[in-house]
């Protein structure tokens, strides 16, 4: 066997295993964090620390989500974290499409559960790439021409602008907006399935689960994790898709007002709390 063939073999192994690993760390871990953060729009009402006079459940949810977004936005080296995630998603996507194209599905003849999940893993992968690209391009890179209603997402008005992007306008659903919300619903569902099923098959790939009972046990755990994440994903999308723009805007403006007030009172605290240069903008 030539040296060249050996290095090709090693590269093949490395790429395959990095593909498997990148789906879990960092992409899968980020998915969990992202869904926990976004679902605060549904359960943030539990958060008493953001409570203010006159605040109801959803006001507290909006405030909690805003706090989470501001916290993330103030993380050191945020751009480096983002670039790491984008690279990992790009790497996983490109190799994934290449690997998926090497197979040929046969669910027509062999209607076994495992075979259906095999096919679904590939379909959700393709759809997920499309969804993530739209999601990041519109909300992070500011490609507002792809957003019905043309709303640009803002860190200071995190809930209201995201709700408007999902609904298609700042005053409730438009027809195209409804399609975007449905697209989001399908997108997050596809990605959660892809992650949970990928976690199950990664355990076989790495040789962690060997016996069939072990594969089954781990499968039940992955399904449980998937169901939990699916719930978070659905309440996130439904929460933002049904959010009242004006209500969210009011809460966010109130929080911004506090930041300005504190900025005057105590410049040191305000920097750590908000970190924005142009609070009025």
């Amino acid at each position, binding site marked *: 066997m030539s040296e060249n063939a050996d290095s090709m073999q090693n590269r093949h192994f490395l790429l395959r295993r990095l593909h498997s690993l990148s789906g879990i760390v960092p992409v899968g871990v980020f998915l969990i964090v992202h869904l926990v953060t976004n679902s605060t729009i549904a359960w943030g009402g539990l958060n008493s620390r953001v409570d203010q006079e006159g605040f109801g459940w959803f006001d507290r949810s909006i405030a909690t989500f805003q706090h989470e977004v501001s916290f993330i936005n103030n993380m050191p080296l945020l751009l480096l974290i983002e670039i790491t995630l984008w690279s990992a998603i790009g790497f996983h996507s490109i190799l994934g499409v290449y690997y998926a194209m090497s197979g040929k599905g046969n669910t027509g003849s*062999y209607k076994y559960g495992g075979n259906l999940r095999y096919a679904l893993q590939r379909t959700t992968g393709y759809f997920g790439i499309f969804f993530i690209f739209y999601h990041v391009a519109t909300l992070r890179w500011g490609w507002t021409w792809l957003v019905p209603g043309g709303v640009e997402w803002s860190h200071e008005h995190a809930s209201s602008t995201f709700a408007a992007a999902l609904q298609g306008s700042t005053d409730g659903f438009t027809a195209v907006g409804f399609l975007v919300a449905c697209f989001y619903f399908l997108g997050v569902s596809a990605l959660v399935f892809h992650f949970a099923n990928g976690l199950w098959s990664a355990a076989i790939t790495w040789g962690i689960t060997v016996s069939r009972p072990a594969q089954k046990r781990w499968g039940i755990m992955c399904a449980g994790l998937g169901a939990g994440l699916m719930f978070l994903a659905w309440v996130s999308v439904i929460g933002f898709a049904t959010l009242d723009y004006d209500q969210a805007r009011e809460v966010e403006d109130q929080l911004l007002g506090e930041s300005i007030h504190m900025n005057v009172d105590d410049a040191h605290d305000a920097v750590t709390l908000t970190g924005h240069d142009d609070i009025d903008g």
Partner: protein
Amino acid sequence: MSEAEAYSYDADMRKANRKQAVEGRSVIFKIKRCDGPGKSTRWESFKIPIETGANVISSLNWIAANPVTVEGTKTTPVVWDSSCLEEVCGACTMVINGRVRQSCSCLIDEYAPKDGDVMTLEPMSKFPVIRDLWVDRQRLFSNLTRVKGWVPIDGTYNMGAGPKESHEQQQMRYALSECMSCGCCLEACPQFTKEEDESQWDSSFVGAHAISQARYFNEHETGKQLKDERMDALSGAGGINDCGNAQNCVKVCPKGIPLTESIGAIGRSATMHAIKQFFQGKK
């Protein structure tokens, strides 16, 4: 150990079919025919009177004696491959009603209980057709040599008796030893695709049978001498990592071999092999 899952799909329906099979009926056999390698394919139907206990092979024998289609046209006898006629050689494997299995053990009563029912026979789609239902499974055997599916005993001196093996180990390996190289796991695998170009075989997916045989010999006390070489081959292109975990292989295996356990076990060996290579490999 070996949890026979073979043909569990629709098993109840086939059992029920057997009970209500009509005596003295005729069944239509729709067969995908091909006159030779590279030739075009066509479908031909034959009407066959079913005797008690008839199977696909006995029906093909009937066609060989009466090669006349339902339209009344005289045609050539249908060609197929078979040997043992008791589901231990694997030669008569073909696609019956859309799913792969051995034709010798395929009872007509289970598939076509009523008069005029249709049975569809096709050659396996992952191997080159020699003629009609007869395919060339050379790639399957070539993949066994790729993973060195044997125990090294040839040498210049007597190696003596092999080491002792525990009862549990024997039980585990016995299940793996039942592989008859029939090709069902490959036919049902979405990752094992037809490859006409022989030079591509060594970098195309090796298949569940070869992975399981590599485990079988890796676990053998003398056979493990070749473990590193097997894992080199299985770590490369077309090796263990090309498995997509659809797990059709274990569902269609007529011997109920725990193929997906072998895939997990070889996955673990590949992980360990890579760590070993990284820290102490000379290449």
